[in-house]
C-alpha cells in the first residue's frame, strides 16, 4: 500500500485533481476574469501532463503558446471591456445550453479518439523527445513544416496589410 504512494502516483492524482478542478471552474464560474485565471491553471496542468509523460518539449511549447500566448490574449480582451462597479464581475458568462452541448460533444469526441492512445502508466524510461521531433520535422515532415510556416507568414503579412489599410 505504501509503495503505491510514490512520487509518480502523487503527481498523477494531484495533476488530475487540479486539471479537473480548474476545468470545472472554467465551465461553471460566471466571472470571466476568474474563468480566464482557471483556464491558465488548466493550461499549466496540461503542460504538467506532458512532463509527466516525459515529453518536455511539448510541455515547454504548451507554456509558450497557450499559457504565455492564448491566455494573455484572453486577458487582453477582457481588459479592454468596459469597467464594472466594485465587487461586480467585469463580464459574466451566459452559460447557454448550446455551449454546454458543444462542450460535452467535443469532450466525448476527444475521449473516444484518445482512449486507446494515451498510456495511463508512466513510461519506464525517459527519453529525449526533442531529438526525435527534430529528426521528424527536419526530415520527412520538412515540406509540411515549410508549408505551415509559409501560411503563418502570409497570415502575419495579411494582418499588417489590413491594419495598414485601416490607418490610411
Amino acid at each position: 500500500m505504501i509503495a503505491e504512494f510514490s512520487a509518480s502516483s502523487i503527481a498523477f492524482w494531484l495533476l488530475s485533481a487540479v486539471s479537473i478542478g480548474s476545468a470545472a471552474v472554467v465551465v461553471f464560474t460566471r466571472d470571466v476574469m476568474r474563468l480566464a485565471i482557471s483556464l491558465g491553471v488548466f493550461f499549466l496542468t496540461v503542460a504538467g501532463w506532458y512532463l509527466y509523460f516525459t515529453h518536455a518539449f511539448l510541455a515547454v511549447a504548451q507554456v509558450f503558446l497557450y499559457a504565455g500566448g492564448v491566455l494573455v490574449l484572453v486577458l487582453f480582451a477582457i481588459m479592454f471591456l468596459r469597467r464594472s462597479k466594485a465587487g461586480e464581475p467585469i463580464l459574466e458568462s451566459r452559460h447557454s445550453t448550446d455551449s454546454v452541448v458543444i462542450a460535452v460533444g467535443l469532450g466525448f469526441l476527444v475521449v473516444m479518439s484518445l482512449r486507446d492512445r494515451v498510456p495511463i502508466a508512466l513510461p519506464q524510461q525517459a527519453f529525449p523527445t526533442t531529438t526525435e521531433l527534430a529528426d521528424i520535422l527536419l526530415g520527412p515532415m520538412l515540406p509540411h513544416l515549410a508549408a505551415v510556416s509559409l501560411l503563418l507568414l502570409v497570415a502575419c503579412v495579411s494582418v499588417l496589410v489590413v491594419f495598414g489599410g485601416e490607418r490610411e
Partner: protein
Amino acid sequence: MSGFVGGLIWGLAAGTLIAIAALFGVWWERKVAGRIQMRIGPQTTGPAGILQTIADTLKLILKEDITPDQADVRVFRLAPLVVFVPVAMSFSVIPFAAGFAPLDTSVGMLFFLAVPALSVIGILLGGWSSRNTYATIGAIRAAAQMISYELPRALAVLSLVVLAGSIRPLDVMAAWSPWWIIATAPGFIVYFIASIAEVNRGPFDIPEAESELVAGYFADYSGIRWSIFMMAEYGGMVAASLFGAAVFLGGWNWLPGIGGILVFVALTLALVTAMVWVKWTYPRLRADQLMSFAWKIMTPAAIVQLVVVAVIAPWL
C-alpha cells in the same frame, strides 16, 4: 520523494538568490546612477551605504499592506506572486558551472524563454484587479511590450541553438567557442536590448512610467507586495544577465575551475551594470516608438542574424 525535497531546496535557494540579487541590484543601481549623475549615492548607512537597501527592505516589510477598497482582493493579492514565481523558476536552467545547472533539461533554452514570459499574466492581473485607470493602462502596455520583445529575444537565442545543435544549455556551453562572440554579436545586442524590455526597465519602462502613470500596473501596491514586484524586476535583470553571460559570452568556459566561475560572475556583473547604465542614460521611449523598434528593427535584425548563423554554422 528525494526529487521533491531537492526541488524544494533549489526553490528556496533560488528565492534567496533573487532576494540577495535584488538587495545588491538596488544598491548597485543607486551607486552607478549616482556616479552617472555626478553624485556619490548611498554612503551613510554602513560601508559605502551597503546597509541602506537592507534598511529599506525592513521598512517595506513593516509598512502597511494596503488593498484598495474597490480592488478585486483575491486577484490583487495573487498577482505579485504570479509575477515573481516564473522569474524564480528561470534561474533553474542557467548553467552555473561546467556540467551543472540546477534543472538540467533537454529543453532548457526554450524553458528560459517561455517560463519568465508567464510574468505578464501577473502584471495583467495586478493592473486589472486594482480597478485603477493608470494601473490598467500600465498593464496593457506591459503586455504589449513583453509579447513584442519576446520574439526577437527568442530568435536571437535561436542562433546559438543552430550553432550548438541542441536546446540543452549545458550542450550549448560545451559546444561554445570564442568565435561565437563575433558570429552572434548582433544577436547578443538584440538579446540584451530585448531583455531590458522584458523586465520593463528604462528606457523601456513605459508600463510603469512615473511621470504619466505614477507606477503603472503596481501603482496601488505597497509594502511587501510592492517589493515582490521589485524583486521580480531585479531578479529578471540578474537572470537575463546570467543567461546572456553564459550562453552568448562563454561564461565559465574562459578559464578552468574557480577562475571560470569568477569570469562568469564578472561578465554577469558587467551586463547588470550595462543595464543600469542604459536606464540612467537614455530617455524613455514613447509607446509607438517602442513597438516600432521591436517590429521594424529588432525582429528583422534577429532574423538576419539567424540566417547568417545558419549559413556560416558549418565553418564554426
